[in-house]
């Protein structure tokens, strides 16, 4: 017996009905619902990230008066400028050293907090997160006061010990030290909280097994903690590297790139050239130069993570 019901009087489904059913089916699919729910975010990202990125790519291909397409002419010009290479060097010094110190301090402090009794941990976590939750433009203004060329509070304090005055923002090396110090102060709590979360997820049994095997403190960190935290360390480092490379406010407020351009990084120099110097295409080219550097770092770090994921 055929299991198809015959409806001799039924009119064949029209095109419109078929379309309506198709839409109905599409709406019932999980992927469609997921897409619709993420659509607002996708639109926001498109409007505020993708469009500006493409627009800056377009700007970077124009001449100074923005009337002519010059291809890679702006990059060619930049490659011949000494100041540009100084900025590249400084951006690398700034970002790499700041990320290393942030990671190191974050790791050490996370261990301290991890070992604090559970009932007191929340208080410590809150206090240690303070630098990270204050808007950096505001906290850097406080640092500016501490480093002020003429009325530095640090120098005032140091003078009681017969030290100084130290030209915190007036000497190239001290100025570099100062901007890195403020960046480390601001960013270390982020590493601390990420590492603390990772530490809490390391199974206690591994430490017990290591202790039975006679592992000392250092061996426990090297053979248990670090391998278990590798992915989070890699992701945090990548994220911080991107943010630190793109930093603007700390350097802009503290030194504005001086003295003698010795603290300029990509974003501050791009602002100087593009906005203050009214050369928007060159400014866009300077800021875009971060992309290949960060892309290379991202590829290496993410490849390493996915390799480990596959091994697991």
């Amino acid at each position, binding site marked *: 017996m055929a299991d198809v019901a015959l409806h001799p009087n039924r009119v064949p489904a029209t095109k419109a009905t078929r379309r309506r059913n198709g839409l109905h089916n599409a709406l019932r699919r999980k992927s469609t619902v997921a897409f619709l729910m993420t659509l607002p975010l996708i639109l926001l990202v498109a409007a505020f990230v993708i469009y500006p990125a493409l627009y800056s790519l377009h700007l970077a291909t124009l*001449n*100074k*008066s923005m009337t002519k397409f010059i291809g890679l002419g702006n990059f060619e*010009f930049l490659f*011949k*400028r*000494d*100041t540009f290479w100084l900025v590249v060097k400084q951006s690398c010094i700034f970002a790499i050293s700041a990320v290393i110190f942030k990671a190191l301090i974050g790791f050490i402090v996370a261990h301290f907090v991890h070992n604090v009794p559970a009932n007191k941990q929340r208080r410590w976590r809150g206090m240690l997160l303070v630098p990270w939750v204050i808007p950096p433009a505001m906290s850097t203004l406080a640092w500016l006061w501490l480093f002020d*060329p*003429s*009325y530095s509070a640090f120098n005032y304090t140091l003078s009681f010990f017969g030290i100084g*005055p130290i*030209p*915190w*923002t*007036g*000497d190239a090396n001290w*100025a570099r030290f100062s901007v890195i110090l403020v960046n480390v102060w601001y960013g270390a709590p982020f590493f601390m909280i990420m590492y603390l979360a990772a530490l809490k997820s390391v199974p206690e049994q591994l430490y017990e097994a290591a202790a039975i095997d006679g592992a000392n403190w250092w061996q426990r960190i090297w053979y248990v903690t670090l391998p278990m935290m590798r992915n989070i360390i890699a992701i945090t480092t990548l994220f911080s590297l991107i943010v630190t490379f793109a930093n603007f406010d700390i350097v802009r407020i503290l*030194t*504005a*790139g*001086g*003295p*003698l*351009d010795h603290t300029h990084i990509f974003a501050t120099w791009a*602002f*100087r*050239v*593009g*906005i*203050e*110097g*009214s*050369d*928007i295409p*060159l400014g866009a080219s300077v800021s875009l130069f971060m992309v290949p550097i960060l892309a290379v770092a991202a590829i290496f770090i993410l490849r390493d993570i996915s390799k480990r994921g596959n091994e697991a």
Partner: protein
Amino acid sequence: MSRKKLSRREFVAATALSSAALVTAPYIRGAYAAGTLSIGFWDHWVPGANKASTELVNEWAAKEKVEVTIDYIPSQGNKNLLTIAAEAQAKSGHDILQMPTWWPHAHAELLEPVNDIMDQLVKQNGKVNGTVNYLGQANGKWLGVPASVGSQIKGPCSRIDLMKKHAGIDVQEMYPAGSPPKDENWTLDTFLKAAEACHKAGVPFGIGLGETSDNVDTAGAIFQSYGAELVDAKGNLTVKTDAVRQSLEFYKKLIAFLPPDVSAWDDASNNKWLVSGKGAMIMNPPSAWAVAKRDAPQIAEQCWTHGFPAGPKGRFAPYLPFFWNIWAFSKNKAAAKSLLVHLSQPASVEKMVVASGGYDLPAYENLTKLKVWEEEGPPKGTLFSYPDPYHRQTLSIAASPAPPKVAQQIYAQATLTKMCLRFAQGEAMEKTLAWAEGECEGFMRS
């Protein structure tokens, strides 16, 4: 139901009657019959100064039946520069936007020419100074109307007591209030000797060598006093000249008498230096004195603003004008021009200058002797010489007379102060010049 038909005769009569009524009826002008106008003004430092601008605009708007909106845009954090860049990119925004120094030239192609009203204003208020001509015009086209609001001279503001005591200079006698200055001996040599004496006495001059405007402006005036240009008016490189070498030699001597941290100074540092009572002189408009009047009145009572020292090629003072500009994409250019004429009337200018406590400087020759500068104090007459009432100085801007788009780069990158610092820190003269030449070559790109 019957419908009444309109006959041809009745239709003609009705039309004629309505037309006659429309023609003879009195014209009733709506509240905003002349449209709308949006304005972006610079947000003044001086409390209450914006109020004078608002009142003048409202007064004009009521008379002309225009609906106006005013945004006061601060220069802190370069918000005004960002607004200019954003509106230029979007080709949309305010009808009138106030722009500082170099920005009208940077956006010359996007600005409405205002030659028609400038001719009229120059006839009425007198000639404008050379810097306004240089920054306000491109190929004979006036790019904006010089705004008194925000325009300033960054001349010396000296401590009367300290200069008399340590350098033996009576600045009040040299620049008396109400009569012409006796400034023949006020030269760069005298200035250097005074700097040395004050340094020895522990109250050095507070002249910055950082990368911000105040620092660059002083260097610009001193370079021009020696006739030093990095790029000439035709766009030729003129870095390796004796005039530039002399300027660097002068600065090297001067830096030895300045506070050790001047390389890190920004635009606030010199103000703080004066208010703290640590220094005998700074180069600034009267804002520093105004702050001292509020925070350290005993110091303000000893302040005297006066002219720049003269160099071998003349007496130059840094002048930074603002302009009121009309975007070419403005939808109400006629109203915008009418408002700018209103704001440039002598009475309007005086009102704005008074509201700013004498900080604002009109660019027109006939408007440099307003009563406010005679009367401001203490000490009375402290601002008398601020607007250069006897035209003893050439008002100039650093990096001029290079073509403005090149000069803007020299100015923004602080090439002059960087050269001074490099040389003073021990770099060989020719190496410093070669570095500056390389920089300027880069600034020439079009």
